[in-house]
């Protein structure tokens, strides 16, 4: 009997070892083959690095290093535009990501900022110094004092509302789990933790309110209106902008799109609000949107109207959870877009300081 038990134990250990070896991690990235842009009829102008005065071999090396950088394993795509043209693109996880949509999370805020500019241009918003009481009525019943918050406070993250993005107790977690019935009333029902216009406090509540008041003023879903006045005008069609269960378009994080489509927003902003020569949003708004309105507590960046500003690089950028970025470097006529696995948390997210060294390298090879 003892030998039977020994044989049985040996068989179990062998089976354990075999099955452990049967299931292995797949390589995190596809093999890097090429970054040559592909023509897919989406309106982008294509070029190559050499034609746009960039060191092609050095760019190839940068891409290889990105693929091998273990810190950047969640990366899905890296695209480089110079002089408004796509010079390189690579999709690290799935070649179908060239047309597959994924969440860009808080990059939605920067898109919303552009749409708010169109709203100002067209008179939907009369003045960004308007108090929100000009737009909300019953939503302010619980706390009329919130009516003094201005649209400017909202787009510069200075509303003073005590809203938290993170953690199970955070308000964004509640919204993602569809707990509140109405987003605007829920956010406006929160207490103040600061006076408006006083301190910068980045959270999802502010853009949610901007989207809500725009939608209320328009009398129709914001995503529909945005499709007509913005997305269609920059030839952006492969996207989805989600609404909350109360029908309000999610202003803080609801856009799903492709890296090339997202890049069109950045290219339009980089060209002072133009798309292929046509003025889509006023240059004056773009200028204000990309100017320092307030200082932040993150990496020395400043903040415009939802757009991040890195003064050391003269760079403006869009930043979404997990590692979604669109960097605009006007001095070099560069736009760099990266997208990542969108739902990572904590240390598994790609941080901006992990990507910036590669941005610097691309700057250095652009003459």
């Amino acid at each position, binding site marked *: *009997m003892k030998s039977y038990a020994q044989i*049985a134990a040996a068989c*179990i250990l062998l*089976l*354990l070892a075999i*099955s*452990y070896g*049967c*299931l*292995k*991690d*797949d*390589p*995190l990235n596809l093999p890097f083959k090429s970054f040559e842009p592909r023509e897919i009829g989406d309106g982008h102008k294509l070029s190559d690095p050499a034609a746009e005065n960039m060191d092609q071999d050095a760019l190839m090396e940068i891409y290889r290093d990105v693929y091998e950088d273990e810190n950047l*394993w969640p990366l899905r795509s890296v695209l480089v535009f110079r002089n408004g043209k796509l010079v390189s693109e690579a999709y690290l*996880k799935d070649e179908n990501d060239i047309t*597959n949509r*994924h*969440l860009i999370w808080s990059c939605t805020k920067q898109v919303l900022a552009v749409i708010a500019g169109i709203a100002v241009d067209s008179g939907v918003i009369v003045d960004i110094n308007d108090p929100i009481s000009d737009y909300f009525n019953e939503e302010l019943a619980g706390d009329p004092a919130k009516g003094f918050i201005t649209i400017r406070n909202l787009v510069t993250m200075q509303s003073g509302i005590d809203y938290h993005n993170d953690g199970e107790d955070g308000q964004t*977690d509640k919204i*993602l*789990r*569809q707990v509140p019935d109405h987003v605007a009333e829920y956010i406006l029902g929160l207490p103040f933790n600061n006076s408006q216009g006083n301190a910068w406090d980045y959270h999802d509540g502010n853009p949610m309110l901007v989207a809500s008041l725009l939608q209320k003023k328009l009398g129709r879903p914001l995503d529909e209106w945005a499709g007509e006045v913005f997305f269609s005008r920059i030839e952006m069609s492969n996207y989805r902008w*989600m609404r909350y269960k109360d029908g309000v378009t*999610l202003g803080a*994080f*609801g856009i*799903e799109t492709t890296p090339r489509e997202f890049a069109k927003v950045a290219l339009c902003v980089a060209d002072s609000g133009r798309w292929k020569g046509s003025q889509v949003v006023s240059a004056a708004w773009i200028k204000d949107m990309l100017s320092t309105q307030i200082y932040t507590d993150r990496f020395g960046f400043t903040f415009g109207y939802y757009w991040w500003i890195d003064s050391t690089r003269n760079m403006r950028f869009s930043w979404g959870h997990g590692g979604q970025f669109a960097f605009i470097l006007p001095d070099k006529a560069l736009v760099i877009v990266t997208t990542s*696995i*969108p*739902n*990572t*948390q*904590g*240390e*598994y997210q790609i941080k901006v300081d992990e990507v910036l060294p590669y941005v610097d390298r691309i700057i250095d090879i652009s003459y």
Partner: protein
Amino acid sequence: MKSWFVLYKTAILLYVALCAPGLSAQDSVSTNESSVLFKTRFTQVKDDFNYGLVFRGMDITLGYAFIKSSDQAMITYQGSFAFGKNYNSGVGEYWSIKPLDSYYGYRTRISRKKSLYAGPFIALQYRWHFYPDLQSGHMFWFTTMEAGPRLIFEMPCKSGNIRITLSNSLAGWASRPVPMTETTFYSLKFREFADNGNSNLRFGSFNRFNHTEFEAGLARKKGKRSSLSYVFEYLGYYCEPAIIMINHSIQIKWIIGEI
């Protein structure tokens, strides 16, 4: 009435019909045995949603088992729930409920002391996975409602009865999340667990999924309450989004009631 409920009811009725001749037969002598079971598992999960990463960890299963055996046949029922954690890039959490695992085996005497039971089994199991570091609060699930053949071989030994069980799914329904689902909305309400677990059910055989289970152990010696066994489980779903699970368990059963 929800379509999944109709499906399950139909499958169970078919199973009962298949076992009816045996259920209605008059047995000369039968023994009943109820036990609680405790199982600890080493789990390996490779889910397409997790970018090719294999999550490995441990889980614990608690359950109840009932065996009625006679000269002609063996009928078993088992229900259990499990929970555990696994790891790769971040942590994973696993919950499972198995409300039904029933078997009817016709007995064949191989020799005076050795018996082979052969017959169909039917099983329903819900599995939910969470990967908070990799997937935030998104829910992934894998539900199977399967039927197939099961063989149980028994022979006595000094310490009790050696029992070897082999089962394999033949066909059934399986449910997985829709590929490329990246919704921003996820809820931890019980109803969402139930609705998701029963959504998108697809019928198939080996083209869709396969579930193999092998158990070898020492069933209880007469007068003793405990039995010990090793269980190997392979579970694969081959359509998009694919998932493969390979598990190794040590299971203890403890008889409750009179022995």
